[in-house]
């Protein structure tokens, strides 16, 4: 029993930390594509957290909507942003908009 509790605590701690870290990386990553991928991963981990919190309904919704559809929407939007770009230079600027200034 003790060991199980400890293991649960460790799992919770790792999951919590991973959530924060993924969120941070997703928000700070200079590459927008990477940021979106990290965000999708974040969504999947959130689904895991819901399961851990005894919320299977939420987990299902999160997996389907939060990670799946939101991810698809984000990627589609990014693709549209990029298809707007004519030149390579503008393309780079779009990827790392804030690095240069």
């Amino acid at each position, binding site marked *: 029993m003790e060991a199980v509790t400890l293991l649960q605590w460790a799992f*919770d701690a790792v999951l919590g930390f991973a959530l924060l870290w993924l969120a941070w990386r997703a928000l700070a990553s200079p590459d927008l594509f990477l940021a979106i991928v990290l965000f999708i991963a974040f969504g999947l981990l959130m689904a895991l957290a819901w399961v851990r919190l005894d919320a299977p309904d939420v987990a299902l919704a999160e997996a389907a909507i939060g990670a799946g559809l939101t991810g698809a929407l*984000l990627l589609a939007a990014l693709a549209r942003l990029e298809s707007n770009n004519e030149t390579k230079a503008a393309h780079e600027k779009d990827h790392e908009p*804030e690095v240069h200034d």
Partner: protein
Amino acid sequence: MSHVFLYALVGTGLFTLGLYALIVHTHLLRKILAINVMGSGVFLVLVALAARARGAAPDPVPHAMVITGIVVAVSATALALALMVRVRAETGRAELSEERPE
């Protein structure tokens, strides 16, 4: 103290983290991601605290609230992304112009 408080704290952490990113970053896609992270933080607080009662089944009301919230979030995100693409097409940048009329 049980693990639910750990998750609740992670939730508040995500909320502030998202808020920071929302203010600091200028690219709209990042701002939209930041809003989503903030939302996840709030949902985490809601659901985590619902599981406080040890042994008993968790309170389903916050679960329903969060499912509602997730759908609202995806709707808002879709609108925001479409707006972002239009802003980009119109202004050439996916940022808010910094010359605020103040």
